[in-house]
């Protein structure tokens, strides 16, 4: 697993992909920091909350080549014929992608430290918010990785992931406009942003945690099946 993790981390930083993600992420969170700092309000959890929607763009960039590139360059042949479990391959890639997003989000911690130089802040509230953000990231990455495993083209993978992220993040708002009751309720259940923003207030809801963790697990499982599918085709 560590070999794949290291290789993927390396791939982020030897191509522009890692830097692009960091640039976009830092730009947005930096903007909100500037605004809150300007108002003199030390709301690092609100910065997190506001900066989260940009994950919609960052995650597809993060995951677009995660699996599709291997397929295109036929490296999956080396991975699948090496004495490793498919689970290890998937988890190595997943943790690399998640680590990359952690680096992107790490600036939020810096902002919180800056705020705490001026006022006494509750670290637990921020930590709660940050953990929720990472859970959200994990769920989106797992989904993006699965999408990436379906195609050989990074472009298709990117577009599909972008669409999927848009859907899960703002599903209820889109469906709300249609006005069908049961559809709205279903959409609300799956609304990632709704679930995430609930925690930003400082309440870590176990239901939301379970939701994100199980969503992640399902898509990691599907990615494994997708990689293994080749053998049974």
């Amino acid at each position, binding site marked *: 697993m560590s070999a794949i993790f290291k290789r993927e981390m390396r791939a982020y930083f030897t191509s522009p992909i890692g830097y692009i993600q960091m640039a976009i992420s830092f730009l947005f969170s930096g903007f909100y920091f500037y605004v809150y700092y300007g108002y003199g309000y030390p709301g690092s959890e609100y910065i997190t909350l506001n900066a989260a929607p940009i994950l919609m763009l960052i995650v597809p960039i993060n995951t677009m080549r995660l699996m599709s590139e291997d397929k295109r360059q*036929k490296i999956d042949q080396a*991975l699948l014929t*090496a004495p490793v*479990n498919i689970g290890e391959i998937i988890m190595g890639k997943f943790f690399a992608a998640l680590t990359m997003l952690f680096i992107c989000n790490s600036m939020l911690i810096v902002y919180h430290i800056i705020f705490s130089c001026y006022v006494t802040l509750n670290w637990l509230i921020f930590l709660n918010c940050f953990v929720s953000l990472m859970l959200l990231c994990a769920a989106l990455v797992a989904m993006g990785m699965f999408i990436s495993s379906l195609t050989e083209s990074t472009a298709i993978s990117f577009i599909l992931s972008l669409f999927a992220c848009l859907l899960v993040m703002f599903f209820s708002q889109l469906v709300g406009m249609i006005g069908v009751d049961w559809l709205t309720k279903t959409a609300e259940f799956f609304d990632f942003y709704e679930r995430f923003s609930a925690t930003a207030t400082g309440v870590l809801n176990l239901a939301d945690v379970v939701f994100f963790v199980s969503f992640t697990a399902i898509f990691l499982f599907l990615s494994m099946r997708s990689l293994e599918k080749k053998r049974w085709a």
Partner: protein
Amino acid sequence: MIEVSGLYKRYGNHVAVKNASFSIKKGEIIGFLGPNGAGKSTIMNILTGYLSATQGTATIDGFDIMDNPLEAKRRIGYLPEIPPLYTDMTVREYLEFMYGLKKVKLPKKPHIDEICKIVKIEDVQHRLIKNLSKGYRQRVGIAQALVGNPDVLILDEPTVGLDPKQIIEIRNLIARLGKTHTVILSSHILSEIQAVCERVIIINRGVIIADATPEDLSAKLSEDKSLVLRVSGPESEILKTLQTINGVAEVESLGQRESGTVDFHITPKDTADVRREIFERLSNRNWPIYMLTSNALTLEQIFLRLTEMPVEEPETDELVGLDNQEDTEDSEKTDKKESEE
């Protein structure tokens, strides 16, 4: 070392491999020969656990590739048709990645150094793979197969796309590796198989149609024991002399192919060896022999003959071996004769 029995691979209605069975002993160098799309790569992919078989089993050193894939894969080094290379890594980084991926226990630096030395990629170790030439990439591909020092090497068309000099180098490399490893290599280049392999498995349209040494194959298939002779001298007199030789069944003049000489096609009676007699008679008359070769089939001709034969239906459960092939060939010949008549 490798046991394959009753292997089938179906893609919907298309059958890529039909009832393939063979076994390979430790230390053998085996060549898979067959036209493009014959099923060579499919069999290799099944052996390495990249694809599953629809039916049948494949075991490596006693470990079934389906039931015990990790143990089986640990014993295999695989070079697929397209070398699986991360082109954004340097050669060294890539080999270190493969070392980690395969969880090799050998000491890292000496092991990778040794591999680089064997495949002669020491000079390009620190270059990015994307900047390497095809020949070097192929070598890096072989190098990654060697990581972990597996007992079995499976090389899928290792010399495809290389220049003649590189082909010879890779071939020598394979021959050297064959001393310490069991090697399976596939190719549609016959001379390559002939040069390197101790045994040939010919595959056509998913069916193993022959499994023998190159020499056995030519001996079995060439009922033709005739000779071709090139002599300098008067054509009609030579013809007469040759006809009088005891053991010669038929002589036919092929005319002049090289200036000042005449070629003859000599068919000896059954098992008679007439070469010495030919030499003595001709030298007595002072007609120098420029060439005397047996008209036996080359591997190339055998290959063409075998692969052009109609393939038996997959329902026949027994291995389609050489004997059956000869039968079909014979019946084919009689069919032709009949139609000619």
